[in-house]
């Protein structure tokens, strides 16, 4: 039984999409279930995902030139790895545009702390219960979130004027 099947069995009602592509297992889940799924992945004997390898986000606005319309705008993507069993799983969390907010996993994996700050900085997705959710790459006065697809590419920020 693969990790994907185990999660599917436990959280069947919270799963939006499940996909296996070249032996990479991917699950898209509802944000409300993230904390429970994460605890399940870390704590269940036989899974024991003790390593959060990557945490990032995707903005699907104008995806594929606007031809593909998703019901949600963002996806927060988690890559988990188990050092003990050498298996991996990718969890995507569907996040709405109106209230971009998911639970913080920094209590379970310490590496989530800075990743989540980066996602907040670049995409403007808030992480509830994060110990110190502030910008990590840009400065505090920076306006907007630059990796959102509706961020104007040539927008000038307050700090340095433009060269026209």
């Amino acid at each position, binding site marked *: 039984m693969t990790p994907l099947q185990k999660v599917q069995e436990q959280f069947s009602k919270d799963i939006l999409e499940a996909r296996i592509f070249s032996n990479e297992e991917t699950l898209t889940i509802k944000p409300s279930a993230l904390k429970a799924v994460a605890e399940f992945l870390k704590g269940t004997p036989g899974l024991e995902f003790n390593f959060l390898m990557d945490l990032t986000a995707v903005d699907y606005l104008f995806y594929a030139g606007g031809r593909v319309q998703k019901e949600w705008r963002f996806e927060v993507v988690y890559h988990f790895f188990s050092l003990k069993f050498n298996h991996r799983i990718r969890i995507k969390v569907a996040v709405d545009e109106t209230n971009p907010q998911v639970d913080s996993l920094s209590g379970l994996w310490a590496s989530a702390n800075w990743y989540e700050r980066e996602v907040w900085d670049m995409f403007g997705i808030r992480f509830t219960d994060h110990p110190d959710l502030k910008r990590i790459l840009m400065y505090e006065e920076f306006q907007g979130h630059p990796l959102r697809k509706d961020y104007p590419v*040539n927008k000038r920020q307050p700090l340095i004027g433009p060269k026209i």
Partner: protein
Amino acid sequence: MPGKTKPWIGSNAMSRLSSPSNFFTSKLKDALGWARKFSIFQYPFVTACCGMEYMSTNASHYDQDRFGAGFPRFSPRQSDVLFVVGTISQKMAPVLKTVYDQMCEPKWVVAFGVCTCTGGFYDNYSTVMGIDTVIPVDIYIPGCPPRPENVIDGLIKLQAKIQTGEQSRTLYDPRAKKGRPAEVQDDYTIEQHIKHIGT
């Protein structure tokens, strides 16, 4: 030379030469400029790929030391020329300003590579579009990265400028230009930003 109003430097060492005069005359300003231009202590502010080309210019093949500029100092307080080598991001800008402020007078700034001159091919949320919006620049060396010959050409032009005693004191002010985009705001100054970063 009695009767002349020029300042001069007398030298008895010259008296052995078969010159009719026992004096070597110069303006004090020129003598200082001559001394300064051949003893440049540079501060390399290296942030990106231009640093490779900077090293190649400084190493034995092209040998900047021929121009008296071979000795980089890694303290701004001991340097005369600030070499800004590589892309400057908005978050790095206050650091660059601080380094510039820490340098003793007289000081000069060289923008090395097109990123420091204008922002280069970056036109995005993170890059400073020309360091002359942050600190005054004396010599611009374009190129991505510039060839060592180009760097040496810039260095010789800098020496000519040092000889005259001129220094750039003004920033590039984009507000002076017309037709700026509406979203641009200039309220936030670099000083405010430094204050913020310090906390």
